């Protein structure tokens, strides 16, 4: 087709500028030599990138964030995969209610959830900060795990599971040998989405962090309250690159898996 869609082209360009503009501005300002965020910057310097490592709370909270997100992810998988399986495999009374309960953390405002968690997990049950943080992050990841894996199970042909059982497999064997390998891409996607959700979370973490233990986003928040130098821009750039890499790897992985699981 020779027809040119000028309108569409202009519109897409505007959307891109609107979406990517701030990212570009942040990236550029992070290389400025001045002590305040300035666009365009007066020169070029990498000193704010060095400063990330100098402020030792940044590397420390980064590690905490990673550990909490990974461990929480694992816990959410252990709870979420069987739940998603049961919800899509069986029709039982109260299924819709259970579905709603599992998804409720996405529907409740983060602040409310965070406050409630603070009240129960930390105040009432006196869990250590680290454990409380882990519980909180497991709770926010669970709905994403259940929803994403649930959607890949919703068009799953369970007769292949029955076929495995008829060939002599036990229920668990059938699940691990036949169901799991065929929803691998769904699980990967769920893990990635849940990880990003947890890693970037502020509203729950803000209630669950305590003296000496914090997550990276909370630490960044604390930092901008006191300083206005481009360190925060530099750290954002590093996070963008890491997230981008993660997305790229998962995308490749899922693309590869999709090839094997296509019907």
């Amino acid at each position, binding site marked *: 087709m020779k027809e040119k869609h000028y309108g569409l082209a202009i519109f897409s360009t505007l959307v891109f500028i609107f979406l990517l503009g701030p990212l570009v501005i942040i990236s550029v300002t992070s290389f400025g030599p001045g002590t305040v965020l300035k666009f365009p910057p007066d020169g070029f310097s990498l000193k704010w990138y060095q400063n990330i490592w100098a402020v030792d709370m940044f590397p420390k909270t980064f590690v905490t964030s990673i550990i909490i997100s990974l461990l929480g992810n694992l816990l959410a998988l252990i709870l979420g995969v069987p739940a998603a399986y049961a919800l899509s495999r069986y029709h039982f009374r109260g299924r819709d209610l259970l579905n709603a309960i599992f998804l409720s953390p996405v529907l409740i405002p983060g602040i409310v959830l965070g406050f409630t968690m603070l009240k129960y997990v930390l105040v009432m049950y006196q869990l250590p900060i680290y454990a409380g943080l882990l519980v909180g992050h497991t709770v926010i990841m669970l709905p994403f795990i259940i929803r994403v894996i649930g959607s890949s199970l919703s068009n799953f*042909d369970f*007769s*292949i599971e*029955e*076929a*495995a*059982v*008829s*060939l*002599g*497999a*036990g229920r668990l*064997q059938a699940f691990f*040998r*036949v169901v799991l*390998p*065929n929803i691998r891409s769904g699980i990967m996607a769920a893990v990635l989405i849940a990880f990003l959700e947890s890693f970037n979370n502020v509203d729950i973490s803000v209630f669950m962090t305590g003296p000496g233990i914090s997550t990276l986003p909370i630490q960044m928040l604390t930092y901008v309250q006191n300083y206005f130098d481009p360190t925060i821009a530099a750290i954002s750039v590093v996070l963008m690159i890491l997230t981008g890499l993660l997305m790229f790897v998962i995308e490749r992985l899922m693309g590869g898996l999709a090839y*094997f*699981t*296509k*019907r």
Partner: protein
Amino acid sequence: MTLLSLEQVSVAYDNHLILENFDLKLEEGKLLSLLGPSGCGKTTTLRLIAGFLEAKGGKFMFDGRDYTHLPVNKRNFGFVFQSYALFPHLSVYDNVAFGLRLRKMKEGQVKEKVLRMLDIVSLNGFEKRFPQELSGGQRQRVAIARALVIEPDLLLFDEPLSNLDANLRVTMRVEIRRLQQELGMTAVYVSHDQEECFSISDQVAIMNAGKIEQLGAPTDIYQYPKTEYVARFIGFNNFLVFDGTRQGNTGLEWTIGDYGFDVQLQAGQSTANTYKGAIRPEDLRIIPLGQLTDLQKSLSNQVPGTVKVSTYLGRSYQFEVQTALGAFTVNQEMDIPIAPGQQVMITFPADKIVMVAQ
């Protein structure tokens, strides 16, 4: 020897009874098909035998043992699904090897058995392919190989050919029958397709609303349906509703008003309460009334009528004939069809009328 027997079994979905006090027996080495309209409980019966469904009551005996509460994976039955249900993430080889590996068989032995089975279903050379790289017929053969290789005590098929085109269906059904006979397997086969069932079975069970209406050899059922339901199901579209009997010229005759019908009963057939005769459209004969003498017109087993509709069927013509006893459908081969509006005489051959119960 009776291998399989369901005794007074009931199955319900959410308190809705699908099978009630259901009985079924099957001899070793035979292929039984379940035939019936959609929703009559064929799949339910098959899944009950496989163990996917739990019976509410009754007993399932297999090879002299009580299988009623035995889990599916302990039954050693092969199940061939309508959707094939191949494992998408495994190659043809690994699909077929699946059941053997679960039995902890040595890889060398697995290989030998898988390759031999792929040879039997003519799929040599396809080991490395994935299910999505196969045609429908090839997938079906992998599904059959996968079920057969574990040397099951019973094979269960749920409409295994319904996703294939007509030609392939015929080829595959012959192949299934050949395999079943060669390997001496006992099998239960579900299908919608009458011709398919009749052509491959030792026994056919005609089902109606969760009950078996008639069970017998294909030829028996085809020729001598016992009930009106079975008769209608297998194409006896014409019924004579008798009102009594009388002594005719050649013996006892069944009557409808003044019309008399001589009926040749089957050996051992009881006629105590059967006052309905069924006959296929292709077994009726029609002749223009004008071609008959008065003497011929006075014979039994005849009803005069008027042709209402005539339809060309390719090999023959189908006529709708309106008579004093209701409408009848007649299929007859002829060069020049009888035109609608013409007066005709329908003949009901005595040996083609089958007495059926309501």
